[in-house]
């Protein structure tokens, strides 16, 4: 399968308001991040993709099926993990996940077997026999993920999957999601406001705003990188560092620091033809003097997802590098 999702001249109106439109967009299999401000049209798009909302015009193809006309086929091959809690009150985690299986057409016995398997995969052991509504957030999120996986879907749609999870839980959930792709070959559509999560897990992103697809592709492809510029972190006297570096022709831009203290974070732009050895020369000198200055962090300065997102949503030219 080389096309996961295809949008063809898709438009959806609510009355006179155009909630979403896309001319010709193709998403390849993989882990895709779906980003956009509130009201950008994410829910409209997801509803259309799952076949729950009919486009006003145009078509959406999911896994090779027409989302509007073959909605059942789509939903039987896709798993959806909603943002809000949505479960059937009064059931245990196991019964809930089994019900999900039965709704996919499995016999009760098969559904229960699969439910046990999926729950073990997600690490839910004794909790599976307890009532869902009484479980803490971490367990409930994983139960939600379990019901999305019960039918061994080719594509899993996750809406804010780390919502309410503490740092350890969040890390575990992101790892689980990565492994679903790496070990099971599933494609994932990951919708989130937390750019850190998306960056950690996704191969490519789709950025929406005001009902349009502003950009899509791998983060690295969307980022613009300035060659020969590096991020520097220093400890000790920043002025001494600054002086030593400027002497050697390095341009420095200080980044804003917390709490008004002098900045220890810089972007260093090396002169033409120089490499990092120049920086180390400067710091070798800096380490000897008193007050000294030490290099405590160095990496090539690239745009990360946050800056890419900010730039694209703010309206700069953000075409798809896949064009």
């Amino acid at each position, binding site marked *: 399968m080389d096309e996961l999702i295809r949008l063809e001249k898709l438009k959806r109106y609510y009355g006179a308001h155009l909630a979403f439109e896309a001319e010709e967009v193709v998403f390849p299999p993989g882990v895709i991040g779906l980003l956009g401000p509130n009201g950008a049209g994410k829910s409209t798009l997801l509803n259309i993709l799952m076949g729950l909302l009919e486009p006003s015009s145009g078509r959406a193809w999911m896994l090779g099926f027409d989302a509007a006309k073959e909605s059942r086929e789509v939903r039987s091959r896709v798993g959806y993990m909603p943002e809000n809690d949505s479960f059937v009150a009064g059931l245990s985690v196991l019964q809930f996940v089994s019900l999900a299986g039965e709704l996919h057409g499995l016999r009760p016995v*098969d559904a229960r077997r699969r439910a046990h398997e999926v729950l073990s995969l997600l690490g839910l052991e004794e909790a599976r026999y307890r009532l869902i509504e009484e479980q803490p957030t971490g367990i409930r999120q994983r139960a939600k993920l379990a019901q999305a996986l*019960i039918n061994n879907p080719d594509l899993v749609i996750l809406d804010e999957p780390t919502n309410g999870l503490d740092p350890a839980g969040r890390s575990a959930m992101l790892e689980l999601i990565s492994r679903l792709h790496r070990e099971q070959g599933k494609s994932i559509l990951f919708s989130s406001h937390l750019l850190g999560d998306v960056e950690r897990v996704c191969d490519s992103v789709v950025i929406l705003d005001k009902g349009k697809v502003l950009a899509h592709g791998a983060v690295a492809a969307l980022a613009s990188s300035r060659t020969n510029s590096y991020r520097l972190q220093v400890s000790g006297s920043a002025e001494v560092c600054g002086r030593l570096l400027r002497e050697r022709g390095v341009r420095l831009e200080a980044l804003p620091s917390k709490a008004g203290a002098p900045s220890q974070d810089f972007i260093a732009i090396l002169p033409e033809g120089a490499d990092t050895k120049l920086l180390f020369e400067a710091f070798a000198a800096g380490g000897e003097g008193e007050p000294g200055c030490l290099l405590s962090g160095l990496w090539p300065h690239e745009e990360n997802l946050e800056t890419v997102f900010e730039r694209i949503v703010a309206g700069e030219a953000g075409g798809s590098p896949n064009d």
Partner: protein
Amino acid sequence: MTEESLEINESDLLSPSPEATVVDRWTLSSAPRESRAAAMAWWPVARIGLKLVVKRRIFKVFIGLGLINFLFFSAMIYFLAGLAAQLKGQRFGQGPLEFARNFIFTGTGESFRDFITSQNTVVMLLLAISGAVLVGNDFRFRSLTFYLSKPLERWQYFLGKLVATSLLVSMLTLLPCLALFIEYGLFGDTFDYFFESRRILFGILAYGLLVSIGMSILLLGVAALLQRTISIVMVWGLIFIFLPIVTEVVHEAARSSEYWKLLDFWFLLQWCSNAFFGIESELYSGQPWCPIAALAAWFGAALWAFWSKTRAVEVVS
């Protein structure tokens, strides 16, 4: 003891036993794709609904009440049969037997109708309490988001809920009534009763189904709209207790038109039951299409309420 030369195959020592494996929990067996027809997707909805109601303790109370009533009727039939056998051939026994037949259980349509009608109160109470569990909670806890994200259409969801509720009600009305019918027939001398009473059987089935499905539709509408038990109980009481009292007062005391009775759901059920069993009655002397229209209005309103609430649910919000 003979000495045997030991033959050691070196390769056995160095290679791991082929039986040893470490099972990777990340290997999922591939799921059998749909083994059940897509059109039957509503059945799990029904089953889970029933299961959630039956699990509660209060359910046993209502089943108990319904059962007592059923046993009472059942015992009456048994008593009659026994009485008839005892008094067979005895000249003076015919009197008491006639009396028993006329006043305790006649075996005509009226008796079966009366049985179902006597169960209606228990049914009403049971539905009021179960409305939240059957339907209301689905809206409160956003279960519909879960259901609709699966290969399940909205009408299948409705059908599942309807079947669950109807089954619940028919367990108290239609099914025991059929059991009584069979019991009565079995106690007769011949099996002619069954052939002669086709109209009665039709009446039982029709009335039973009307009560089962009809009250279910009403409940689905009310529960979808109100969602919490207390609200459902209050509105349910309004429909089944308050309105009948008001219409009675207005009709009797103020001697107003008979058509006020159409607001009383119990009246509508009774009128239909008489029609199904072919029983003549002075209950109502107005136009026959009015009760039918009134029933249609009740059902229409309930269906509309349920439908608009489910339509309003967006899976991705």
